[in-house]
């Protein structure tokens, strides 16, 4: 079993206020259903949607003192909108789950293996 992070990225100019309320509700419902499905199938480890990107803070702890700055990462145009941590037998299974998640949340999903500690 390998753990994968499925992350949902949004472009900086995506405006969610354009999305009609009933469409938004449909997406929330689809994501809830997907979460239930992967919980039942034993793939679920953890998941969370994130607060708006303006609420992000970046900590750079590589120097002597940690440097805290208003986020997001300046060099990245796209930003993380939410994620799941799942457990799957292999990449094919993770990709299949990610594809369903992508459909549910109406966004592209990046799949990355988690470095096992």
């Amino acid at each position, binding site marked *: 079993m*390998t753990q994968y992070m499925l992350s949902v990225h949004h472009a900086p100019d995506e405006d969610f206020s354009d999305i009609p309320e009933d469409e938004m509700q449909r997406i929330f419902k689809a994501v809830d259903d997907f979460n239930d499905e992967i919980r039942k199938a034993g793939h679920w480890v953890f998941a969370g949607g994130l607060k708006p990107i303006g609420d992000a803070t970046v900590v750079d702890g590589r120097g002597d003192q940690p440097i805290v700055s208003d986020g997001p990462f300046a060099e990245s145009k796209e930003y993380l909108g939410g994620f799941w941590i799942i457990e799957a*037998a*292999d*990449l*094919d299974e993770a*990709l299949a789950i990610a594809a369903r998640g992508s459909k549910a949340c109406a966004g592209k999903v990046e*799949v*990355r*293996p988690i*470095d096992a500690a």
Partner: protein
Amino acid sequence: MTSHTRGHPAGLGAVEETVRAEHGRVLAGLIRRFGDIDLAEDALSEALVVALEKWPVDGPPPNPGGWLTTTATRKALDRIRREKVRDTKYAEAAMIGDDTPAEPTGPVEDDRLRLIFTCCHPALAPENRVALTLRLLGGLTVAEIAHAFLVPETTMAQRITRAKQKIKHANIPFRVPLAEDLPGRVATVLSVLYLVFNEGYLASGSDADPIREDLCREAIRLTRQLREVAGPLGPQPEVDGLLALMLLTEARRPARVADGTLVTLTEQDRTLWDAALIDEGHRLVRGCLALNRPGPFQVQAAINAVHTDALDPSMTDWSQVVRLYDQLYALSPTPIVAMNRAIAVAELDGPEVALVTVDGLALTTYHAWHATRADLLRRMGRTDEARAAYDAAIGLAGNTAEQAWLTARRDTLPGPS
């Protein structure tokens, strides 16, 4: 150090042929058994060293593949013990006494088929899929692959290392995909094999041989292998179609280049064509047609079958060729297909009709587009425009034999140059 940086010692001759024929099968079995590509490669590489000492003296064993598997397995187990790897995966592998797979995976149990799907996994970059397939299944050395694709050996070694690392880290499975994923995954494998063949058939680069026979042969061998091992999955007409396309193209190779210059289809000495390959290609095409599940490779093979059916260029059934291009365009509507259809139309309706189509295509950076225009303009007597088009084509062509042919064509134009 992994085996791919070592390569094979020189001067193996017959032993090398045997080894290369068995390479994919033996390595795939080792990868399945040990679940680790690097370990499997190193073990096989050590077994090859022993083979190269013994076989030239004692003669090859009756079952070279079996011998290599047994010897490499012993080498791998030795290595695991020697390095006292505590990794449980290695320890488990070392304790498994038999060769049966740990879990049933997919509809067919063939290690090479699993390995092809691993090497051509869509999560790997396309150029890395090609490199890994040639390395692991084809048994080509990194130096050979680097030479074939005209990149420095270090670059090729990095590509292969990166691909193997991603397979390991992301846990890309070593198995035949599930039935619902299969058509798409087979298509990915076919596109890798087609890429290998094309690079061989029209090699790029000013220092390269115009035709890399070894790459063509390798692509055909791997496609035959895929066809053999994928047989139990049910009819795969696109696999047959690709094999037929390769065979019918390869059949014309002896007539295709003369004195470093490309010879076009209409000018080729058709007695030089390989009749056996043409027969086999035609048989495959007929088999595909009977299944009636057309795909782009099958239709391209059928077009080549029409050409190779004609003993003389004047006997070519051009209306059949145009009909097949119509079908191909419906399956894969690209400007290149539209251009090739127009070339066939020129034979039926004249160059004027074809030129109208060709001029409307957004292919100005493609040398063959300029070469096609040049030929049509030449036939229409528009010499100055033809000359300019030949110049543009020569400037863009990457293949030396093609450049030589275009230059010769341009220089036969009447009037001032």
